[in-house]
């Protein structure tokens, strides 16, 4: 028996409503990653607070940023997970999030692993002009699948493959099969096969997660499932959009937070995964909280600027490339990403830069000290001539809780309004982001944003 021991979710600060994307759009929203976010920063933000010794990382995405490099390994390194960890990517379809969960459960059941970190992170954009027709949204979810009991017991997992796909990429081009054939022989046939293995009366809550789910009602009815009460509607999509590889797991968490009893998720994309859960309590509000207090993108132009990500041409300065060094990043990762500082054995001053001796008391002995990711602003400024998609770049000098000082950019400050405005003495939290939005190499460091009360 395995469990979902704990989980974390991350949704970007900004959402955009359909009516901003198109005059004919309604009030449905999509989460949109900020200019300095990608699937790595989203994944890190969803996973960084999960306290567990994990022995495998499974990273699911249908919108990879690497080719020829594992996102899972990259994340494991950023999180300082143990060496020799099993780190795999999954990503053929939007089902890859639950693919990872099914595989994690199998690893735990087989006694290969104690705790497996499953991460699903997606950032997809619709083609320009097709915003209303294309479901999209940005977000990441992380779960620890464990031998220990947790928030929900996994009572079963299964996967049912299908040879028929409705829509896919072949040799770089999109192929769309005849809709009646594909949906009939693909989607409907597959879910019929899967749900046929259940006694419909034994399930309290059922989720069917698929972009084709609107075609499922007849099949579900025939199999004896009730649209009212038993079948959980997708209440997330209207609030955050469709999160691709992360969507199935987001809906699973939605179920854990809102329903008790025997629950099942059917996640369809060219075949199905089924995950059955036994949920005893619904005390958690992690997703519920993440859904609150989003800021809205209020113009299509701003949305385009976010998508373009840093073709700066302001004040006569066009950005070329920024020096960064993989050697330096690898050598100093404990300090740069791991936020390790040095505490003086003499006077206790905590410095972030390594030095031969303390600048205050001249003591030569230091010990490594983990710095906090929250703190208070000591001083600040706004740089109007630093190239950025949304200038100015706010520079914040932060005194970290428990000691140490760091100077970082503010982020999520597209609109320099009251909500984003920071002053000396305000509390901020650090968040890992891309340092140069349009850099040619991965380039992550800490930025900060206000702590909301």
């Amino acid at each position: 028996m395995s469990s979902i021991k704990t989980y974390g979710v991350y949704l970007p600060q900004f959402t955009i409503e359909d009516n901003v994307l198109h005059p004919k759009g309604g009030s449905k929203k999509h989460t949109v990653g900020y200019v300095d976010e990608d699937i790595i920063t989203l994944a890190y933000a969803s996973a960084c607070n999960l306290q567990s010794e994990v022995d495998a990382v499974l990273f699911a995405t249908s919108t990879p940023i690497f080719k020829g490099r594992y996102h899972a390994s990259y994340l494991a390194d950023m999180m300082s997970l143990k060496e020799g960890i099993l780190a795999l990517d999954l990503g053929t379809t939007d089902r890859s999030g639950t693919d990872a969960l099914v595989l994690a459960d199998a690893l735990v059941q087989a006694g290969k692993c104690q705790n497996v970190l499953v991460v699903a992170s997606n950032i997809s954009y619709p083609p320009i002009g097709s915003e209303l027709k294309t479901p999209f949204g940005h977000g990441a979810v992380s779960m620890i699948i464990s031998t220990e009991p947790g928030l929900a017991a996994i009572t079963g997992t299964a996967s049912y493959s299908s040879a028929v796909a409705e829509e896919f990429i072949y040799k770089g081009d999109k192929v769309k099969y005849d809709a009646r054939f594909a949906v009939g022989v693909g989607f409907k046939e597959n879910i019929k096969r899967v749900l046929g293995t259940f006694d419909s009366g034994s399930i309290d809550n059922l989720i069917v997660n698929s972009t084709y789910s609107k075609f499922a009602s007849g099949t579900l009815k025939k199999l004896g499932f009730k649209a009212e009460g038993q079948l959980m509607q997708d209440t997330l999509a209207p609030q955050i959009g469709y999160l691709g590889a992360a969507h199935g797991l987001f809906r699973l968490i939605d179920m854990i937070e809102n329903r008790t009893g025997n629950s099942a998720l059917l996640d369809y994309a060219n075949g199905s995964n089924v995950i059955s859960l036994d949920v005893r309590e619904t005390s958690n509000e992690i997703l519920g909280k993440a859904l609150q207090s989003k800021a809205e993108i209020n113009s299509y132009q701003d949305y385009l600027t976010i998508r373009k990500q840093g073709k700066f041409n302001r004040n006569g300065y066009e950005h070329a490339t920024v020096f960064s060094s993989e050697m330096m990043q690898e050598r100093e990762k404990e300090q740069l990403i791991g936020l390790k500082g040095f505490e003086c054995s003499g006077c206790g001053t905590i410095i972030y830069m390594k030095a031969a001796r303390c600048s205050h008391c001249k003591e030569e002995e230091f010990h490594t000290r983990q710095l906090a990711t929250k703190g208070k602003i000591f001083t600040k400024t706004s740089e109007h001539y630093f190239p950025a998609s949304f200038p100015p770049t706010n520079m914040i000098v932060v005194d970290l809780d428990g000691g140490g000082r760091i100077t970082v950019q503010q982020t999520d400050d597209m609109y320099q309004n009251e909500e984003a405005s920071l002053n000396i003495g305000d509390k901020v939290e650090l968040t890992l982001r891309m340092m140069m939005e349009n850099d040619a190499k991965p380039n992550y460091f800490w930025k900060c944003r206000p702590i909301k009360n």
Partner: protein
Amino acid sequence: LKKEKDIAIIGIGVTPFGELFDQSYDDLVRDAALQAIGDAGIAMDDIQAGWLSTAFPEIGVYKGRSGMDLAEPLNLYGIPVTRVSNFCASGADAIRNAANALKAGECDVAIALGVEKLRDRSPQDGIVKMMVELTHPFYQKGFTAAGTFAVYANRIMHEYDVTREDIANISVKNHYHGTLNDKAHYRIACSLDQVLDSPMVADPLTVLDSCPTTDGAACVIMVRSEDVDPTRHQPVYLRGIGLSISTGWDLPFFNPRHDFLSFKATQNAAKTAYEQAGITKPMDEIDLVELHDCFSIVELLTYEDLGLCKKGEAKDLITGSATRLGGETPVNVSGGLLSCGHPVGATGVRMVVEVANHLRGNAGERQVKGAKTGLTHNIGGPGAIASVIVLSNEN
């Protein structure tokens, strides 16, 4: 500590400062050097050693990477020439090195020349670009030079009764002074409202709180005092030189003990220079000051660091007229960096030339009457390196 009294400046030269699109790095070197050599009444080949100050060779055509770039435009070969690089204190450091070589007896006649050719590129393509593209990819990334000083402005306004207007009034004063200097980059007076309303650079500092990107060069010829010829020379004596590195490039922004209210480097450099010059009451003993107003806030902070006033009282100096031309101790009567511009390697030497002109009584419209003792100050890096030089027309 050994006194610096025995070194004299016998020749001075300075080019016009500005956007000198018609002049190359080499042209600027020649202009400043030939003025100084002519002023000293010596022959080029009398020079036995040289120090070249250029802070940013990479902006432009890589001129100034070594002493070679002083020798080549002058065809001054066969002598040692060293390039000095210490950010905004480079010029003053060239003079310090020349003084030390004269004292050590390495040479009898030395040239110290500062030059910077920044406007072979557009302003955002120069020092701004360097901070955007070439520095550490993470530490301080997001700052331009303006921001590294703006954080001091915000902190001092938070901590003391200093207002945005107090800071802007520095710029009003120095731009007024600039109208009196025919070699300044800007000779335009501005009002308080103009400073406040000009485009924002780094909150709260606006364009008019910031020095421009400028070309220029300045040069001094130096000898030991015993070699001064009173029939030919109008000597100015070096009475004290202090140079101090008191923090690093990144440290101020990552050191929890840094208060963002003062520059230790300036305090340390001033202490050294004052001790050598025997100065105990700077405000009473110094007749004029050229200090490093790269941004208006820096002048305000430097009043205290140089001991021109007590801690927390800098505001009173700018509110009154003490540091204006005609006041008790005029500061930046040249117009400062805010009006003259800041060809980085040249600025420290330009200041010494400015003070020398006042001590000689040759400063024209902006002459500080009866000036006997003057001071120059530079601060470089994010407040990391400072130089202070005390000059006098009496040995």
